[in-house]
């Protein structure tokens, strides 16, 4: 056994606080160390060549690099030692920068600590054995969860690259929140006009399988080889037979809330959410249906000309395999009513959300594109917009910006003037954030062309006076209280993660933040990856975003998925558990703790049944190593002996 130790100075990053020469000298006295030196920049090309040359010259078979964190440069040095003819797992990195030189000032203290850490690294690499990476085949199919604009974009990109995609959408139609918008900023494009062709394209794409009214209920496996359970909920309508004629909806006697229209107007128990729905198929909501509540009705079944209604339909369970998963579950509006009692907490019918207003603006919406007061159906003259309701609001536990409120208020103000030329819009704002391309211009238009009056300040209270509402706020620019009597109040309500986002994240084993937005692997350099390999993020499920950003992220996620799916196989980590079969007592306590079902029973020739690790499933957590009563399971790279020898060395 011949170990070489290389102590990096990292310019002065390390050398300023750690005496690297002294560390190298101390390393020379360590067991099996045949060469030790201090290098100015070990990760640089000359630095790496110096390591390789020393490895040849001193016939090294193990290398310790004391430098930055292994999270930084382990792969760099693994490649270097391979060039020196050394197995990459015979390299040990010792972190004397992030966890030593950068956090200590006393040179002696830092040097002593660095020597301890190098000694531990030497002890550890002594216990290391050459390992070889395995290979597992990649399933060449992608799963996209969520059929909003991000999911649609990602699915189309992957499908256009020639790879099969399954898109799972919880609702009976795809389209997501974008389908509910009337126009989109900054261009004031008609939302449906740009979205629905994409929806239709997706429906008819030869590489895409669309599963609506479906949810992901369980995910097993790992990058390249996920096994996903999908539950397709019974909608009591045969998708193949339904022609989308909507006669059932017309005749249905059971009223139901209209979720697509954000509660403006009413829907029926059997319905199609909107005229351009994809697939254009009715769905029945049992909880509102007389047939299911009272046990008699059957109107829809009677009137359906296609015989598509089937009350006996049951949930279907599918299990499918995928190589990559893109999560695009989007957002919903923050549940403002409980948080803002001063705004009436939902009691005043003429205080509505921006999404409800959006539905009113839409020609295909419940009011046919007419802006009316929900209380009496009259056209409003004065309309007050409130920005940042449930955004940038520490007091209600929502400190972050919704990213789109400023812009859609400006857009809605412009549209209001178009719909009601005699109307007056007032906007209470905190700051106007109009940073995107063409955004500032929209804001200017709202003020100059649409004549919206911007008042900088928060609103403290809204209360009714006669059939009007009084909005009491502050104008911080003139430093005074303002009171506006108005006909309608529109709240720019902030973003919240989609319902059940946290639960889905746990099924997928991806990280999420305190607001249940999914967490990217790195905020700058890995913005679409999650911490779980093979699972990518697109759109507002990762955080509030507008449509251009969602689409861009979706295409980025698709590119990552395509890169993964175009590979035939993947390398696996060899740092997995192994069982000493001679001494295994066959108790299978290991199998009980294994999170990946990676431990199998196997009968040996001598009649004993022992535990066997399925290496392609084992992820190397080491739970079994701890749970094994006779201690015959070892996690390669982190064996008991290796860890103990490290402990011994740092305490010496």
């Amino acid at each position, binding site marked *: 056994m011949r170990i070489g130790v290389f102590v990096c100075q990292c310019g002065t990053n390390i050398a300023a606080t750690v005496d690297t020469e002294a560390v190298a000298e101390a390393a020379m006295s360590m*067991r099996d160390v045949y060469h030790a030196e201090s290098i100015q920049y070990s990760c640089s090309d000359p630095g790496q060549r110096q390591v390789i040359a020393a490895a040849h010259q001193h016939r090294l078979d193990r290398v310790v690099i004391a430098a930055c964190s292994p999270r930084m440069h382990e792969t760099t040095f693994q490649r270097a030692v391979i060039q020196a003819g050394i197995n990459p797992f015979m390299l040990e990195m010792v972190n004397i920068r992030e966890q030593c030189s950068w956090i200590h000032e006393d040179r002696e203290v830092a040097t002593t600590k660095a020597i301890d850490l190098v000694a531990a690294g030497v002890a550890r690499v002594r216990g290391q054995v050459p390992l070889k990476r395995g290979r597992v085949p990649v399933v060449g199919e992608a799963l996209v969860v969520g059929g909003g604009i991000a999911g649609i974009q990602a699915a189309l990109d992957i499908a256009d690259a020639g790879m099969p995609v399954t898109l799972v959408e919880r609702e009976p139609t795809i389209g997501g929140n974008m389908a509910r918008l009337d126009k989109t900023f900054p261009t004031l494009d008609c939302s449906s006009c740009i979205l629905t062709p994409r929806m239709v394209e997706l429906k008819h794409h030869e590489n895409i399988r669309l599963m609506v009214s479906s949810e992901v209920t369980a995910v097993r496996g790992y990058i390249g080889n996920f096994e996903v359970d999908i539950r397709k909920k019974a909608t009591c309508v045969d998708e193949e037979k339904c022609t989308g004629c909507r006669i059932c909806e017309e005749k249905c006697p059971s009223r139901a809330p209209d979720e697509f229209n954000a509660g403006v107007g009413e829907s029926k128990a059997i319905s199609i959410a909107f005229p351009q729905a994809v697939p254009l198929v009715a769905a029945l909501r049992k909880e509102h249906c007389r047939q299911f509540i009272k046990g008699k009705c059957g109107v829809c079944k009677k009137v359906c000309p296609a015989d598509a209604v089937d009350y006996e339909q049951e949930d279907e369970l599918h299990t499918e395999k995928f190589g990559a998963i893109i999560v695009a579950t989007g957002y919903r509006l923050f549940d403002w009513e409980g948080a803002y009692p001063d705004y009436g907490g939902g009691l005043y019918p003429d205080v509505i959300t921006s999404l409800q207003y959006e539905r009113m603006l839409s020609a295909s919406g419940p009011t046919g594109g007419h802006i009316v007061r929900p209380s009496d159906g009259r056209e409003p003259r004065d309309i007050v917009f409130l920005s940042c309701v449930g955004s940038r609001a520490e007091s209600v536990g929502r400190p972050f910006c919704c990213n789109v409120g400023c812009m859609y208020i400006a857009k809605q103000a412009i549209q209001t003037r178009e719909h009601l030329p005699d109307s007056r819009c007032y906007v209470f704002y905190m700051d106007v954030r109009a940073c995107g391309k063409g955004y500032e211009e929209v804001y200017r238009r709202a003020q100059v062309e649409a004549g919206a009056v911007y008042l900088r300040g928060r609103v403290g209270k809204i209360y009714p006076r006669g059939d009007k509402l009084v909005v009491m706020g502050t104008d911080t620019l003139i430093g005074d209280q303002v009171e506006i009597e108005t006909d309608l109040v529109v709240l720019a309500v902030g973003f919240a993660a989609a319902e059940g986002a946290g639960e889905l994240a746990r099924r997928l084993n991806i990280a999420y933040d305190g607001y249940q937005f999914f967490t990217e692997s790195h905020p700058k350099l890995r913005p679409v990856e999650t911490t779980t390999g093979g699972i990518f993020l697109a759109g507002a499920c990762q955080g509030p975003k507008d449509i251009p950003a969602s689409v861009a992220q979706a295409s980025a996620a698709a590119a990552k998925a395509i890169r993964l799916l175009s590979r035939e196989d993947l390398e696996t980590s060899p740092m997995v558990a192994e069982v000493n079969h001679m001494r295994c007592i066959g108790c299978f306590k290991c199998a009980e703790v294994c999170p990946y079902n990676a431990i199998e029973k196997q009968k040996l020739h001598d009649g004993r049944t022992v535990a066997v690790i399925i290496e392609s499933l084992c992820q190397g957590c080491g739970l079994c190593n701890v749970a094994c009563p006779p201690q015959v399971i070892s996690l390669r790279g982190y064996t008991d002996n290796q860890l103990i020898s490290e402990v011994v060395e740092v305490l*010496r």
Partner: protein
Amino acid sequence: MADAGKGHACGVRRRGRDDEIKLVGFLCNWCSYAGADMAGTSRLAQPAALRIVRVPCSGRVDPLLVMKAFQEGADGVLVSGCHPGDCHYNEGNYYARRRLELLKRMLPYYGVEPERFHYTWVSASEGGRWAEVVAEFTAAVEPLGKLHYAGGAPAAAAGEEDGDG
């Protein structure tokens, strides 16, 4: 192999003063270890008594390993993993929590003050929190001084001749 191995052990006792405490920290590679890196990147000064040993998961930390560290001369042992719900391996930290909580409660029966052992959760983004954890743990152990725990086996077993098992 021609080289039978360099004869002498990994060097002599390195630590100078006898009253200096020594702490060992087992850190999950996916979260706390990265959190400790982040504390370094942010140049957050920390007490220097702690030596970090990287593990793949807090669930890899055997309570016996903690006892072994005490036996080998550690005056305090710290384990840090991913926050409950955020385990890289789904549930490793739940196993860690159960095992380590039991260990903590048993320590007084071994003559080890429970303050000498601490387990906690620090994510990859919580560099500031990591620096606080190190400072607080060091401050908690310092007044207790040296442990001198010999445990069941003589500490001299430290020869680690069996480096590669």
